[in-house]
């Protein structure tokens, strides 16, 4: 998938101009919030359930190398094949070869963000293997040639009229309709035919269980189960952080995932595969191939703060609650992963230099952190990345900060450690700031200190800098009082 993280500001502006998407997100936010809260309230103790999720994922990441080996051992024992891909290219090449060796013309795909990350569809198509996305949302954006707008609902921003026209043009919808059920049915008929003849299905993996070698998929449309059970060959692609120690851990995460994601206690389909079809079994693929994708993850594993981002189970709750995502939508983030989870993960996988905006375009409001079912402290990670830029961390491809900023913070922190210097600074800066005061209010600041204020004054005023600070006022009052005491004392 093409990486456009550097175009964040431009694309964000376009996103805000899109009246349909903007209105939709505004309308959707409170609905999703209520649904999620209602679903969480079915836990005897929702906060404890979330905290337990955090513990499971914390342990999973802390023991990641060992758990992956255990998972591989058990998956092999179940009869699955396991391929370790160091990067996107290795994963894609391997899967393309699998298709070529089997003489496959097309594959059906279940929704999978890691295959968006590695750009699998593009790689397959380059090698004349057609990839059909079978999740309704993914199918729509595939036909439209657009990136996912949301990690869970990739096409939620597309107006229904656009879907109608698209289906009439591309998949033979005969009668124009705005009935979502009939539109869904048209897609279903079209895709059912693909499943019918498919020889290779490709899916992602929601959770991998180390103790049993099982892979778990969570979905609502049944398309993943189709993609897994119809073809002879099943390829399941997982990023390497998806593993958890036990089946019990996995089941708790499924409970959390569904509640936080779509506000369901359980999704319509949860499928678990422990190896391919065994002798005497009725259905299932003849071969199950699990592709474990690293793609930069093991390189950042030593950073114990940053690797917290790898706890993510892709529920999308942080996108739904993010006030910035609600304004700009999902395209601005410029890659497979959007919203706060993308803002903490993409910088690790792509490097800080070209993901600057992702960890800077945040108010640190902590909404994401407060609802995350696996305890990711997104604001802390944003500050961690910013600090890496300042210290020039090579491993994360940090980008040096501008000279003027470095000078400013040097002076500011120097003064903040000494009151006399702070007072002096205030006296020097004030006349420049207060040059354009009208009735105690500033609506612009000109001159050497004006630059950084431009963004502020675009939409708001600022009270003038007080001629007498609180500090000055307190001092004066103290003086007046001690004078009073003295006179009273004399009397």
């Amino acid at each position: 998938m093409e990486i456009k993280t550097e175009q964040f500001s431009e694309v964000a502006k376009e996103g805000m101009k899109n009246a349909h998407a903007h209105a939709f997100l505004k309308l959707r936010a409170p609905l999703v919030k209520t649904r999620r809260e209602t679903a969480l309230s079915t836990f005897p103790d929702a906060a404890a359930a979330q905290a337990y999720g955090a513990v499971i994922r914390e342990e999973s990441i802390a023991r990641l190398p060992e758990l992956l080996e255990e998972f591989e051992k058990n998956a092999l024992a179940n009869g699955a094949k396991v391929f370790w891909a160091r990067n996107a290219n290795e994963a894609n090449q391997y899967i393309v070869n699998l298709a070529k060796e089997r003489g496959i013309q097309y594959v059906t795909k279940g929704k999978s963000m890691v295959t968006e990350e590695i750009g699998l569809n593009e790689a397959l198509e380059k090698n004349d293997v057609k990839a059909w996305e079978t999740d309704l949302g993914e199918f729509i954006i595939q036909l439209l040639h657009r990136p996912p707008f949301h990690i869970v609902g990739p096409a939620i921003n597309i107006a229904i009229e656009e879907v109608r026209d698209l289906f009439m043009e591309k998949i033979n919808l005969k009668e124009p309709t705005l009935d979502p059920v009939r539109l869904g049915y048209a897609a279903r008929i079209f895709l059912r035919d693909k499943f019918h003849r498919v020889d290779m299905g490709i899916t992602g993996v929601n959770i991998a269980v180390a103790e049993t070698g099982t892979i778990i998929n969570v979905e609502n449309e049944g398309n993943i189960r189709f993609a897994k059970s119809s073809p002879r060959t099943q390829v399941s692609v997982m990023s390497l952080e998806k593993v958890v120690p036990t089946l019990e851990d996995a089941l708790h995460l499924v409970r959390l995932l569904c509640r936080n994601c779509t506000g369901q206690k359980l999704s319509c389909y949860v499928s678990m595969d422990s190896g391919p079809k065994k002798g005497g079994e009725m259905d299932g693929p003849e071969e199950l191939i699990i592709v474990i994708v690293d793609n930069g993850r093991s390189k950042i594993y030593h950073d114990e703060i940053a690797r917290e981002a790898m706890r993510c189970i892709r529920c999308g709750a942080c996108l739904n609650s993010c006030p910035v995502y609600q304004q700009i939508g999902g395209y601005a983030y410029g890659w497979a992963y959007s919203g706060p989870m993308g803002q903490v993960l993409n910088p690790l996988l792509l490097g800080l230099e070209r993901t600057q905006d992702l960890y800077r375009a945040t108010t640190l409001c902590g909404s994401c952190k407060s609802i995350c079912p696996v305890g990711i402290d997104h604001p802390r990670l944003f500050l961690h990345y910013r600090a890496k830029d300042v210290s020039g961390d090579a491993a994360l491809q940090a980008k040096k900060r501008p000279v003027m900023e470095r000078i400013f913070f040097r002076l500011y922190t120097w003064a903040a450690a000494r009151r006399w210097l702070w007072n002096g600074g205030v006296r020097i800066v004030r006349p420049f700031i207060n040059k354009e005061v009208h009735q105690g209010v500033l609506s612009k600041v000109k001159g050497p200190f004006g630059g950084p204020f431009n963004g502020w004054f675009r939409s708001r005023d600022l009270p003038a800098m007080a001629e007498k600070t609180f500090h000055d006022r307190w001092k004066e009052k103290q003086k007046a009082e001690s004078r009073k005491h003295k006179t009273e004392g004399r009397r």
Partner: protein
Amino acid sequence: MESVSLFIPCTVDLFLPHIGEATVSLLRRVGVDPIYHQEQTCCGQPAINAGYREQVKKAAKHFIQVFGDDEKVVSPSGSCVGMVKFHYPELLAEEPLWRRRAEELSLRVFELSQYLVDILKVEDVGASFEGKVAYHESCHILRGLGVSEQPKKLIRAVTGTQLVPLNAADACCGFGGEFAIHYPDISESMLKDKAENYLASGADILLLCEPGCLLNIGGFLNRNFPGKKVMHLASFLAQSQETMNNER
């Protein structure tokens, strides 16, 4: 007489000194004697948020030296309290002595409404105002400190005041320090939503406990909806009805 140490954020010191004075008179009214260390400056939040962790350590140590021995420290800002409470111990993690001092201090720093309601057990501060108010839940107060009921209890106890619901009260107003400067369009869009929700609430005054949000929302209202009021809770509680109605 109970005495507390005042931690006046730099935004209050430099731009909103009346909030500091309101805090003083409010504390005196409930029988607390505020003391103010004149050596205090700024907690260093802008530098920590910008990633200048090494550079800001001296300022953090200065803060700990100034406030270190105080029994209780109270501030009319949740985000500044959050800096001292949560960030200082982490910032100084590699210097055990300083870290311990920071951890000890973190237990003794309180946001104003939290101090009044949780520590002093005061809800009715003897204020009165005839009218409707709404309350904006600032991010670092609500999600940072877990403070939400405390200010509302104080508001509900004001004679004649009706606390009306505010749609998306817990949504960020779009300031976020350097965020508002680097991403003015996104910030403005968030701010507009906040203002719209306030206007739709029918409240006469929007109350909050965070000077940063006050500068942001107040600056927008001043330019686009002059006459629509936003006030720090300390100012609201400290002023009598008469002076409030005469403002502007």
